[in-house]
């Protein structure tokens, strides 16, 4: 299933709830926690930075692959080209004084999902996240 949100300003919570309520989502609480977190971090990124003042659209969707064993979540927007995966990972071993506030969201998403892919196609940013949901 998929849905278009326009404009996306202040819609982060609504978009998260839409995706979390998808019938494709697993029931397992631990998996749902990880999926919710990955969704929040990536959706918030688009809502905050893709368009000036959040005035623009975003299409989000879920699908099941491999006989329902793999969940795919896709986020698509026509904002400025931005590959979040290019950003270098934060150094998680730095001492307190040197830790910076920020840069953790995409890192968390990459750690929690099995696969995170980005492509720029026909003027759109397309981020795809995959997670095995068989238990």
């Amino acid at each position: 299933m998929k849905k278009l949100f326009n404009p996306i300003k202040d819609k982060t919570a609504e978009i998260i709830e839409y995706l979390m309520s998808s019938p494709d989502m697993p029931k397992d609480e631990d998996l749902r926690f990880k999926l919710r977190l990955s969704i929040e971090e990536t959706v918030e990124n688009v809502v905050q930075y893709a368009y000036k003042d959040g005035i623009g659209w975003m299409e989000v969707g879920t699908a099941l692959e491999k006989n329902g064993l793999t969940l795919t979540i896709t986020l698509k927007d026509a904002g400025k080209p931005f590959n979040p995966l290019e950003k270098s990972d934060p150094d998680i071993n730095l001492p307190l004084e040197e830790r910076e506030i920020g840069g953790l969201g995409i890192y968390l998403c990459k750690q929690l999902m099995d696969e995170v892919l980005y492509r720029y196609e026909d003027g759109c940013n397309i981020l795809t996240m995959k997670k095995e949901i068989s238990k």
Partner: protein
Amino acid sequence: MEVKIENTGTQTLVVLKGRLDTTTADKFMQDITPLMQGDNPDIEMDCAGLEYTSSQGLRMFLMLQKSVTSRKGNLVLKDMKPNVKEVFDITGFSNIIKIV
């Protein structure tokens, strides 16, 4: 997201309840403002009711820890749920904030 703050003489007890995310982070920041003041703070946070934290929440904990450290105080997070603890572990926050 609920934050209860109680002062018991020299120690400050804080009880967290709910989800710390994009929509609740600003309010949480306001709620913990009293913890950003005073010398030698000794803060214990009961995290048993903390259901979830995103990177927004981690930012708040990092700010609080930096503030507490600069005032030569202590901050301890207690009874964190395994899921939430994992977020602190993955990001290395378990190394810079005391979790028991």
